């Protein structure tokens, strides 16, 4: 059984072109993270001081929202492998909701910063914080758009147990958005 599964599983799952895109995206974030780390190393006091002003609770809720959303994407793929289109559509709706919850909570954070007059020029820490989180925020929006297309396609019955490459590819992109946040959250909010 195990052997059979190994033979059947395509590697990498989904579309190769999308994996190249995901790798390129991860490279962009990696360079940004490296720049953050190097700058932080020479400005530790400043970074520690302003990191303390961030809302860690909301960020933790955001992490839970994205992880839960990713879980629903996995569930949607498992459902489609069993040819359960309706169930898969429901899971995708829940994953979109998770993404939207993230956006709302992040916008709450941004509006708080804006009301305090914080912007990219306030200091080096806020420049990195706003740049990194906003760039990720834009990816969440793109991810939700992709999930919406997948939801529509699943509803139309375009994916089946034998043909669901599109769903797997879109799911991989959403996991990438999730993964980036899992690095971003401790790096910017928690690490002292």
């Amino acid at each position, binding site marked *: 059984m195990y052997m059979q599964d190994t033979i059947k599983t395509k590697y990498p799952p989904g*579309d190769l*072109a*999308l994996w*190249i*895109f995901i790798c*390129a*995206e991860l*490279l*962009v974030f990696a*360079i*940004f993270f490296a*720049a953050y780390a190097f700058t932080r190393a020479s400005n530790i006091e400043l970074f520690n001081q302003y990191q303390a002003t961030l809302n860690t609770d909301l960020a933790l809720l955001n992490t839970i929202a994205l992880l839960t959303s990713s879980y629903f994407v996995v569930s949607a793929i498992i459902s489609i492998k069993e040819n359960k289109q309706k169930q898969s559509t429901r899971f995708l709706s829940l994953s979109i909701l998770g993404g939207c919850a993230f956006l709302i909570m992040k916008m709450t954070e941004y509006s708080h910063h804006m009301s305090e007059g914080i912007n*990219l*020029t306030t200091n080096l820490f806020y*420049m*990195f914080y706003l*740049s990194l989180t906003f760039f990720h925020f834009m990816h969440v929006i793109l991810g939700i758009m992709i999930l919406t297309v997948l939801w529509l396609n699943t509803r139309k019955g375009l994916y089946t147990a034998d043909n669901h490459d599109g769903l797997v590819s879109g799911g991989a992109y959403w996991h990438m958005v999730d993964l980036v946040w899992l690095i971003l959250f401790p790096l910017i909010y928690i690490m002292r």
Partner: protein
Amino acid sequence: MKYESQSVAKLYFIAAIGLFVGQIVFGLVMGLQYVVGDFMFPEIPFNVARMVHTNLLIVWLLFGFMGAAYYLVPEEAETELHSPMLAKLMFWVFLVAGALTILGYLLVPYATLAEITGNHLLPTMGREFLEQPTITKIGIVIVALVFLYNIAFTILKGRKTVITLVLLIGLAGLAIFFLFSFYNPDNLVKDKFYWWFVVHLWVEGVWELIMASILAFVLIKTTGVDREIIEKWLYIIIAMALITGLIGTGHHFFWIGAPEYWLWWGSIFSALEPIPFFMMTVFAFNMVNKRRINHPNQPAVLWALGTAVMAFLGAGVWGFMHTLAPINYYTHGTQITAAHGHMAFYGAYVMIVLAIISYAMPMMRGRKACNSAASQVAEMWSFWLMTISMVFITLFLTGAGILQVWLQRFSDEPMSFMVVQDKIEVFYWMREGAGVVFLIGLLLYVYSFFIGGEERTVEEKV
């Protein structure tokens, strides 16, 4: 050629090649003026030669893009062009306006040209690459709008493909960003800031979409690879080009007085601009390797592969060399920039226009698929002559640039600009030599159109 109206592209392609020859002649004049300062002075001063060289480049590439769109859109949309008559009319309007502008540069002092064209009513002149009189700029907008109308209506009435969609976004972006050339604020920082909205967002933004869509079209036609595979690559290439290219504009904002965060944004995003070009190279070679037909038009395939490689080297590698702020601090505005500019424009835009001309021209001239073997050999020789000489132009300018940075900006006792120019003279002479070889290659390219003979055999299955 599947649709009669595609033939309007021929006019655009002929004008593009004619202006290309003019651009190179003025490039050689200017190259000589680097070492023989009073060559052709006062008839053609350096600033005028430079203006004509760069403006002709932009105008002939625009002719090339328009020709490409008029050729490929009807074929993709599977319908005749919305209005061939309008396309021909706009061709003559653009050509006459362009010719009058160039004559204006050459025949009257620039200040007089500004005066007689009413620049004081809406001042837009006097900025690098946007030197055109305001009235010419208005003409460009009109031509662009009519062109977009014609292309958009052709697409709307026919089949919609990813290629035409990407091309249309690119062309619309081209028109929209050009509007910033009319914004000419007194504040020098703002002036430079928005000036880059035209210059950068053209060549490192929307033009890349145009290039990618033309490349995808030529590859579909010459390799027979499934449209779905090519379109998928096109999507990820343009997504990456936009992500890195749009924010990458920041690498021009380092030293103009813009906020400090641009040092980071510009460095990080522009450092990633080579990625879409690298993807394009992988894409082009992948498609040719997976080809299902051996297309008889070998030069077209050669130009398509060449553009992918040279764009990656010129725009990607040579751009990356000096895009990080700490490096650009020393290299900004030196001959390293000139080296990058030459290879990037040649690789990304000159070669893609020549690729579509190479593919389309034989059919527009009544052949079934391609030129005779002799003509193709001549064209491929011209490819290598132009490409290798451009590699040398780039290397010589890079050498000049490295020495310039060292002597003028980095050493303990920096020398003045003009003293350094004397020291790097040998590089300028070598660059001029490579430029002459480039012109020979270009003339051979033009000559290849006049070589007759039997058409090569038609395409065969792999």
